[in-house]
């Protein structure tokens, strides 16, 4: 499976990151690229439950491909959402179901962000994404 261009860019940027500090700065830069959601979209129905910070996730299917938009009020979490969306946006249902997200974060040097004790909510985001794309 070839990487989407945005995912390739994320991999190039993060793989060369020497430490936590640079990674944090990079995450925040990626987070700035997330398009803010409108007031009408930041509603409880779009909110991901189980995150300490507020996170909203919207999914839409166009011509068989999934498109996502997401936002959080925490900046590092916005960055994590951005690199997640870079990998999953535009995938078909089958590709999405087969994607190993943990491996993706591992490749970026961000695997700790998915550990079960993290309260940042990335696991809840992934769970929500699966629910949205199943229905």
């Amino acid at each position, binding site marked *: 499976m070839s990487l989407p261009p945005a995912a390739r860019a994320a991999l190039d940027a993060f793989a060369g990151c020497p430490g*936590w*500090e640079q990674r*944090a*700065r990079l995450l*925040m830069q990626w987070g700035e690229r997330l398009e803010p959601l409108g007031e009408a979209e930041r509603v409880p129905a779009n909110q991901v439950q189980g995150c*300490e*910070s*507020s996170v909203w996730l919207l999914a839409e299917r166009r011509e068989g491909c999934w498109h996502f938009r997401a936002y959080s*009020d*925490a*900046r*590092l*979490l916005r960055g994590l959402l951005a690199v997640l969306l870079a990998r999953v946006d535009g995938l078909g249902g089958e590709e999405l179901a087969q994607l190993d997200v943990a491996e993706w974060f591992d490749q970026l040097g961000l695997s700790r962000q998915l550990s079960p004790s993290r*309260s*940042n909510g990335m696991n809840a985001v992934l769970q929500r994404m699966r629910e949205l794309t199943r229905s």
Partner: protein
Amino acid sequence: MVLHSPWRADFPALSLFEAQGQTYLDSAATAQKPQALIDALTGYYTSGVANVHRAQHSPAERVTRLYEAARQRVASWLNAASPSQIVFTRGTTEALNLLAYGLEHRLAAGDEIVISALEHHANLLPWQQLALRTQARLVILPLDARGEIELDAAARLIGPRTRILAVSQLSNVLGRWQPVEALLQLARAQGAITVVDGAQASVHGRHDLQALGCDFYAFSAHKLYGPDGVGVLYGRADCLDRLKHWQFGGEMVRRADFHSADFHAAPMGLEAGTPPIAGVIGLSAALDYLCSLDAQAVRRHEQALLEHLVAGLSVREGVRLLGEPQAALASFVVDDVHHADLAQLLGEQGVAVRGGNHCAMPLMQRLGVPGAIRVSLGLYNDGEDLTRFFAALDQALEILR
């Protein structure tokens, strides 16, 4: 500033953390364990276990003696009149749930349960749900800007319909001592049952419960340098007697047939099933350890650490403390910085603090913040820990701003 902890070496995890570059400042969540406790647990498990209060064989007699000696130990720690006033539970949460069920028959529609705006979910949700079950009214005592329950308001709100007053002695978010004596007086004057949540307070100073005069007091062992899975419910003898049994099973029953049963009085009647025997013995060892320390020296050390912490936070631009902390912990927010971002970058630097709502969502709403960072101290922390915390905080803020 040199703030040395002479007790740090008693806690093996602290040297391990040091080797790993970890700074532990989350003791209000759970505390590290002294070697004395670890030895007691190992000793119990290696000398042969048995269940308590059930058998005539000699291992059972030995373990039952240890278990009941622990009850005596806790009673004397709290200055309870008798060990029969000590009920072992799984933690503060279970102790408070026990009360919310055990007292249910004393409530009628329209009665009032009074708590405060700073309660941990453990001292809020059992009462909230009890109020819903009985159509009682939950009354919330407001706080002043320092984070203390307002006594004027309490004097108005605690009234003739008040059946239960349940308040924390020390806030897990604001680190402020509460005017519990005055509140108990107000409640007693109305004939209300009084409950004190001592989960945080029990760790910082010994409390004489006969002098305090509350009907019930609850705390957890794991915050008091003891094992997890064990809590204590203290009750005045006449108050314990009026609790309804709430969990049913082994050893709490006096006589049973297929269709009816009657039950032991407290404490046995409130300890259904096999209790956390090792944990109870461990708690006793933790109390022995604490008793061997110079309590005044511990208090002075914790006070000095807190002053250093508060002073350091206060001089940093944009940092805002929640309330005015007095004991062992401080919570803060930073202007234009999300607490989750800050918690994450502190974590990246090996500083263990808690970020979030601290199991007190309604308090956070009241304070108008989505969450906060809490730094909490144990007797093993030292000035170096705080130096590392401040360095990590400055570094994190530089990245985030």
